[in-house]
């Protein structure tokens, strides 16, 4: 498989503008089976098990079954990705369960204003080595320079 959809939970993103797993999949392997009206992984052998679709699925319908060439059956890895943290549930083949929770973001989604607080670009600086927001963001007083004499 690698990523696969649970038939009882996947509604094919009916009523949504986009099929979410199809839109987010970096490998273009998650697609909508139009006959079923549900998501399918059309090319499991080019799935990276990256979990992008699992994290994005609004119906919590997707999971990964480890690659058949090496992974024993029976374990599972489940997650819930919230706004500020992700919770993982690792279910071992032997029955052990471990739970972890990690922060993913310290600010609100959609809050980035990349140039807020920075002066507008000064075209006189365009041929100089400094980048946008420097030296402020460097954390040191000035950009490191080497004079040609220094290294010749």
């Amino acid at each position: 498989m690698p990523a696969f959809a649970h038939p009882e939970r996947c509604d094919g993103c009916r009523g949504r503008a986009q099929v979410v797993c199809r839109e987010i999949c970096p490998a273009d392997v998650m697609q909508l089976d139009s006959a079923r009206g549900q998501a399918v992984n059309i090319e499991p052998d080019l799935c990276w098990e990256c979990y992008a679709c699992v994290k994005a699925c609004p119906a919590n319908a997707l999971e990964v079954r480890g690659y058949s060439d090496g992974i024993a059956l029976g374990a599972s890895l489940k997650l819930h990705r919230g706004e500020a943290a992700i919770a993982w549930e690792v279910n071992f083949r032997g029955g052990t369960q471990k739970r972890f929770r990690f922060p993913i973001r310290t600010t609100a989604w959609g809050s980035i204003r990349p140039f807020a607080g920075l002066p507008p670009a000064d075209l006189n600086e365009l041929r100089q080595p400094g980048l946008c927001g420097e030296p402020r963001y460097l954390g040191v007083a000035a950009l490191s320079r080497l004079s040609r004499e220094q290294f010749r």
Partner: protein
Amino acid sequence: MIPPAVETVESDVLILGGGMAGCGAAFEAAYWAEARKQRVVLVEKSAIERSGAVAVGLSAINCYMGMKWGENRPEDFVRYVRRDLMGLCREDLVFDIARHVDASVHMFEEWGLPFFKTADGRYQRVGRWQVMIHGESYKPIVAEAARQALGAGNVYEHVFITHLLPDADDPGRIAGAVGFSVREPKIYVFRTRAVIAAAGGATGVFRPHAVGEGLGRIWYAPWNTGSTYKLMMLAGAEMSQFEHRLVAPRFKDGYGPVGMWFLLFRAALKNAYGEDVEKKWAGLLGEWAPYGEGTPTPTPLRTLQLLRDRTAGGGPHYLRTDEALQRMYREAQQDPEKVRQIESDAWEDFLDMTPAQALLWASENVDPAAKPSEITLTEPYLVGSHAGACGAWVSGPEDLAPKEYFWGYNRMTTVRGLFAAGDSVSGSAHKFSSGSYTEGRLAGKAAVAYAGDQGAPPRTDDEHIHAIAAELWQPFRVAEAAAGRSTQPDVNPAALSPKQALLRLQKIMDEYAGGIGANYTTSRPLLDRGLELLDALGQDLDRMAAGDLHDLLRCWEVRDRYWCAQAHARHLLYREETRWPGYYRRSDFPALDDTHWKCFVNSRHHGRRWEMAKRPYLQIIDS
């Protein structure tokens, strides 16, 4: 398949690829373009929130100087990178990334990326250059900033670029790019003044360890197909160090990261008999002087030690997570809270960036504190951002680059107006996510300057564009023509599926160009024979068939990998020495030869021929 519609998009700066380098380019170019009233457009084959090598997430940022705490200076980083690359790097490019990279990382934190901190408020170090992050959402955060900077209308997603357009009046100057939508029958023509090639490195050029369904389980992202290299080389750009590749020790079959285990947890790599591989084979390092002396040991020599032990029958090899964690638990005096935190950090390392490795542990009931995990050497990858160094030969920054390395604009290739960043740039390895982002910024700023300095815009040739459009849809015509030739679609004398072509490519490269099946060894006779087979495959690529747009994407991705394979084989052939012995060995030239080969090997594909040349290595930073 119905004939495609054609949409033309005009811009001043066009960014190819929305990974770390592309997002950095978008951020920086947007800032300067505003003042010049230029339009910056980014095109990506998937969605930028989860594209490129950082799509999954990362548990560490591997390139951070810590200048504000006096931890490292850019020149220290150059010395480290130079040694890891066995004496060969573009010191101007590496220094340039190092002097800017902290600013990018500080922006990531301000945007909302969570960092591990020490008691005194510094970033928690994994190693000298690496800092720990809670990086599951690293890419969505960086993508949000890029999208905000550009404006949503300037981000074209699910569009795959296959060709660069030269100026109709000057083939040495760039004029645009062409590709197709992977969602609807539509061809995109991007007309622009400057192009930044910022897509990822090349996986899938070599046969992987995995078989069958596991084919996609490789260390580096399988959607990184080397399009950036193909586009640049077929546009006539000079490529550099395409013989350089990456082979790395990783957790077997899961490809989980090992950096934290080696550097922070100080876990040892031992063979089946309990021997420490590094200690057992320490004597090897002297054979590779001066680069093997001192610490840290360069990556290709650490790889060599494991390879030697494997050949000597020491396998399976294990990373002794058990010993490392037990030692750490003892150091924490078995304090349950601290033990729990160490365990959580260990699992987060995988869950942030390679969840499939955690699934592998669960499927084998691995408690890393009780049971060590197998380590193996990966198949080779062609990358420019990690401990691999292939890519385009680019101009350095005006204030740092010697005249041999400078031609007008920072990060511009030898094709005017074509810039590169991240995996796409040769000679500046070890930039990783933050350095790739920073290099994207450098290219973004320079591209805006270049675009503004141009007079009349370059001219595209409609006839040429029509020819490309016809070529793009060729796999559909092949499928239609072949339909009556067999009772089944997958065994057809007139057509190859893209998967069949890919497997054939991987087999050739594995057997003749030093893949895992050849124990990373090759030679002139092997490469000559491999090139014969590659050339024949190249002709057969015109027989690739597509039934839908997904197949069409795969057909064009195979072409990316094919051209990377061509360049790789020709570079391997040209460099008559073995410089990075754990990455590959030339059995006919098994030793390091600084007298003749302490230089860059460059190539140019021109008029259907490959021109090879040596370019000088110039030391900028003292030893």
